């Protein structure tokens, strides 16, 4: 998955180097595994992590399965906005995103506005070294999005509202009313799955 171009499109030695270079990861791995940072241990850690991500049966899932009362009218309206504003162009599919890459700042230069550019801002370019991949990131899945603050690779958005705001400005290149944004955030909350319902 890590090397799969559909997902991360990275390489193992690169990953190990990066994980090892992060002192926090290093100590955490040393605590969890006898031999520290290795490919096998990273895989194991990722697998453990990903098991927590399998959170089916969100309220939205139930709604899609035909339970009309699974989400409220306001949330339904948020879903409509989500589609209407074009969020669904990228955050799409079963996982509501996570199946493509997209340039951060399609409709406006996010990094220029934010200032203080870092290497991490280059995104996929760091892996592919293709000019076209500069500032291109994986479109994240929005499942459980309400639980995974802060948002973006630079953790610049502290709340969902902030994140939705940034998305509107730089990705959609549109302005939306406060009510519409709130409606979308309400919808995003329905994507929280049953955390304890592990298979």
């Amino acid at each position, binding site marked *: 998955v890590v090397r799969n*171009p*559909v997902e991360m499109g990275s390489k193992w030695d690169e990953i190990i180097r990066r994980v090892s270079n992060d002192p926090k990861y290093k100590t955490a791995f040393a605590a969890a595994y006898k031999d520290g940072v290795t490919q096998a241990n990273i895989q194991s850690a990722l697998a453990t992590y990903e098991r927590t991500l399998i959170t089916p049966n969100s309220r939205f899932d139930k709604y899609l399965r035909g339970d009309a009362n699974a989400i409220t009218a306001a949330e339904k309206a948020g879903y409509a906005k989500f589609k209407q504003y074009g969020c669904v162009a990228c955050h799409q599919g079963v996982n509501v995103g996570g199946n*493509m890459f997209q340039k951060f700042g399609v*409709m406006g230069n996010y990094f220029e506005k934010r200032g203080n550019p870092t290497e991490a801002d280059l995104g996929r370019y760091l892996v592919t070294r293709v000019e076209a991949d500069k500032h291109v990131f994986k479109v994240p899945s929005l499942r459980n999005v309400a639980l995974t603050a802060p948002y973006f690779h630079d953790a610049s958005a502290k709340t969902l509202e902030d994140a939705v705001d940034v998305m509107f400005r730089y990705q*959609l290149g*549109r302005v939306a009313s406060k009510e519409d944004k709130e409606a979308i955030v309400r919808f995003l909350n329905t994507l929280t799955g049953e955390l304890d319902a592990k298979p």
Partner: protein
Amino acid sequence: MKLLSRLPAWPSMSIAAILLVSVLVFLYARTQQKDESGYFEDIAVLRHLKQLDAQWELDVLKSKIGLNAHYDPLADSLVELTRLLDGMERDFAAEQHDQAAALVLGNAALRRAIEEKAALIERFKSNNAVLRNSLAFLPTAEQDVRQSLGRIDTHDASAAERTSDNVNKLLLASMLYSQSASDEHATEIQNGLRELDADKPLLRAETRDRLEIFAAHVRTVLREQRGVNELLGRVAAVPTAARVDEIHNILSTEQQRVADLSRQYRGYLLVFSAMLLGLFLYAAVRLVRSHAVINRVNKELHSANETLEQRVEERTRELRQAQSDLLATARQAGMAEIATNVLHNVGNVLNSVNVSTGLVSASVRASKIQGLTRAVQMINEHADDLASFITQDAKGKMLPGYLTQLSQVLVAEQQGIIGELTAMTRSVDHIKEIIATQQAYAGTASLMEPARIEELVEDALRMNAGALARHQVVVEKEFAPVPVLPLDKGRILQILMNLIGNAKQAMEVVSDRAHRLTLSVGMVQDHTLRVAVADTGEGIPAENLARVFAHGFTTKKDGHGFGLHSAVVAAREMGGALTVHSDGPGTGAVFILELPAGPTGKNEETA
């Protein structure tokens, strides 16, 4: 004979058979070697790959025109494609392929093509998402601009009018451009955008912002549509299908080759089978012929065997005849020997009879009976004066004295004749006895009668008595007490006669020492009668000891070689044995006759 000579060829024949079978198995294996299912599986995988690839491209196009709501099918296709590629790679590595290197290369090329395509599609997804978003938003943005234009009165109505027109045109042009990305539309859009920019300063701030957003999206459509189209072209240009076909071709050629090879080997197999069949037929013919030969030989052997049996039977009969003839001859020879002895003894006795007869006739011829006759004549002449004559006459006076003398002489004469006649009578009796003995033994075959062995020995000696005496042989007898036993007197006497005769002859040639014949009789362990005839003759050399009993063996100038042979045969016929012992030339010899005495021997010992 043919069969026999072929026997040692078995090992080589079995080796040949093993070789033939090996060739057969090898050829068969070669025709079966390639499992075609592998090929067909690979082909199926390739078809699937191609289909998936096409589906992938179709999904891309669907995404382009908005038929696909999301990109999950694109990702799914890639996952499936990668899975198939991996499976095929494993197959190529695991299976036996003549062109494995080419296949691996083909697989790698296909993988590269798919990866390239995947990368392109990835970019397509990004661009297409933006394009579609902008396209979807454009009408809304246009509406926003027009609302803004219409709602608030502009200080430049003509600019507002133009802008509204332009926005409208741009929207239409963008839509058209999204359908067919022609340069014409692109220029139109760019012109429209320039006109918008030209009028922008004349508009209010709020309208300007909205116009800005609209323009940005139009530009985005322009940019992304170009990118998407280019990407689509490149996606379509990625030679995945060609790569699949290449692999397909390699596999097909390989399969073709394998099939050709298999066909070729099938041909070989056919030829080989025909050869084997021929060989088999040949062998069968040979076998049938061999069988006939065997049968014939068998028949011949059978008849030969029968003839042989017949001949053996004949020969056996002849031999038996010869043997009985021989036995009869030996018997007759033995009897002749006895007869010779008998005649010899009779001759001896006849000698004395002759002498006695001569003496009697001489004494009778010279008898003084004449003197008596003359005295009787003188008495008759003087019958009338007999008294005077006797008293007066000179002659007459001598007569009584003469008669007295005469009677004395005649008495003596008579005594002599009677004596001779007595001797003659004895001799005649002796002859009668000898003849009676001979008659007792001759012609009586195997007659067992109670007898004393000593008497038989004495008889044998008596028959040889004359000869033994002539050769100054001292006979010694060592007789142990032996019971009366049932004995075949004829055979035993024949044997003893033979042995005694041999001993006598063996001693004839010896002159430097005494001739002694020792006859001993005794019992060995109560059940065997033992008679030994020992001499002090010339002896028997060791090399002849084993041969003396052989038929036809003799050391005598006029011998016939029957004597000892018939003796040993006779001993065997009686259930006994005749053996010989000699320390060598000059030491004499001992012949030992042993006969079974039977279990009754002990009981009769006292009798």
